[in-house]
């Protein structure tokens, strides 16, 4: 019977690796969208394969973390919420993968005049996810600083909403040359991109509640 086990170090590494996967996934997503908008389908497919590998690894790590936490009875009181946090964070990388897949499958016809706006929207939405990752890391080390870290997540989520509304307004009110089917398709693609910041905001809300509980 081992009295003092050394599972904590391994588990912390798995948490870090999981978050690294999500973080890198967001970078690859940005590059994937830019590649598509620049017409480089080969690069898009390369980025998609990369993001699929990251997502698969994140899923594997998530299962391992959950298994280790149950088997070794780690953080018994916070465990349910930590599982929820992992699950919702994993949804971010899932969304990035699905979005890039939509681009490869549906090949949306984005007007040249909107391409810069799509890049700005992608940047804002992915930035919300970017800012979330350090906040999650902070929860595990200095939970009383989580709220400060999350301010930028909320900022980029608002920014994404604003940009999305702006682009949709242009599509539906200022671009009569586009038929309704194309407009609807563009709106659908916009929803996919802004989905990342929505997921990041949902994780941020959960993280705020979790941090308060730990501090109390």
């Amino acid at each position: 019977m081992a009295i003092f086990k050394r599972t904590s170090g391994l588990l912390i590494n798995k948490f870090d690796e999981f978050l690294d996967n999500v973080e890198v996934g967001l970078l690859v997503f940005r590059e994937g969208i830019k590649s598509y908008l620049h017409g480089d389908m080969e690069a898009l497919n390369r980025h998609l394969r990369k993001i699929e590998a990251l997502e698969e690894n994140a899923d594997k790590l998530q299962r391992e973390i959950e298994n280790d936490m149950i088997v070794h009875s780690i953080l018994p009181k916070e465990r349910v919420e930590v599982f929820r946090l992992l699950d919702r964070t994993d949804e971010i990388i899932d969304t990035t993968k699905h979005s890039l897949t939509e681009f490869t499958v549906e090949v949306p016809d984005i007007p040249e005049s909107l391409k810069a706006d799509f890049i700005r929207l992608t940047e804002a939405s992915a930035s919300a996810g970017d800012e979330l990752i350090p906040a999650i890391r902070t929860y595990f080390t200095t939970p009383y600083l989580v709220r400060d870290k999350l301010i930028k997540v909320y900022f980029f989520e608002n920014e994404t909403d604003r940009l999305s509304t702006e682009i949709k307004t242009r599509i539906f009110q200022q671009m009569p040359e586009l038929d309704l089917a194309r407009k609807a398709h563009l709106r659908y693609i916009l929803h996919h991109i802004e989905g990342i910041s929505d997921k990041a905001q949902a994780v941020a809300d959960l993280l705020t509640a979790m941090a308060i509980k730990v501090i109390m």
Partner: protein
Amino acid sequence: MTLLFITSGLFLGWSLGANDAANIFGSAVGSRMITFRKAAIIASIFVILGAVLQGSGTSDTLGKLGAVNAIGGSFTVALAAAITVYSMTKSSLPVSTTQAIVGAIIGWNIYTGNATDAKTLTQIVTTWISGPVLGGTFAILLYMLLKWYKKRAGIHMIRFESYIRNGLIIAGAFGAFSLGANNIANVMGVFVPAIDLPAIDLGFLTLGSGQQLFFLGGIAIALGIITYSKRVMETVGSGIFELSSEAALVVVLSQSLVLFLFSSVALANLLNGIGLPSLPLVPVSSSQVVIGSILGIGLYKGARNMNYRMLGGIALGWIATPIIAGLVSFFSLFFVENVFEIIVAIP
């Protein structure tokens, strides 16, 4: 025949193990930080070590309260205390083995006409108050220190929990040692003046009569831990105030410190040696010290979520236990002496 007479003490030891081990490992096992198996093994080993190596100090104090000099008397006194502890536990009433044995000894004193040493009694009763107060004070200080360290160090939550888990094992071992050292007097103290066993030379250690009795008592406590403490451990910790893992560590540590302070002969000698007053070597109720410690943390956290009704019940048990044990002891001695014609006291 001697073995037959000490069965009442062993029964009391079993009850103590079944109940009081939960004070040491209850929070850790209840919150699934440590498995019951691991807790039971550690507690059993260290409770026996504490009883054999450091159990004499508190036993001497109980001897001063009332030197039960006939083995029939020792048997009856221990039985009265055991019956009190067992029946109060069965009725879900908070009970202290220490108070039960003190009440039972006073019952013997009254029955046999021996005077109760007022100084020793005052010393013991004072610790019923000072023990929990000291436990609460230690708990507040240790909790503040731990919180300060946690905030400053910025350790990963999982690593910090691993430290707490290891801390619970180490503090639990220390707590079990202190419990054995401090509370063995409750179990075997009344037999020490009445039984004289030949010394056993183990080569590296010679076990005197008292230590052999303490060893047997320690085994009885260990059996109580292994056979009956699981349920108590799994339900403890949420009664008065729900404990976090770090609060659980603080409670175990402060309880262990208090029990150690009230039972360490070496510490008492050291303090006396440098001209400082030492604490009396008195058996303290581990349950009451735990309650004091939990209360301390509860007060520090702003006294929210405290179960005041349960605290009232505990305070009532504080007064009722020695009275009930004294009465049971008095009438049992009458019964044993007159019905079974067993000598309960040598004039």
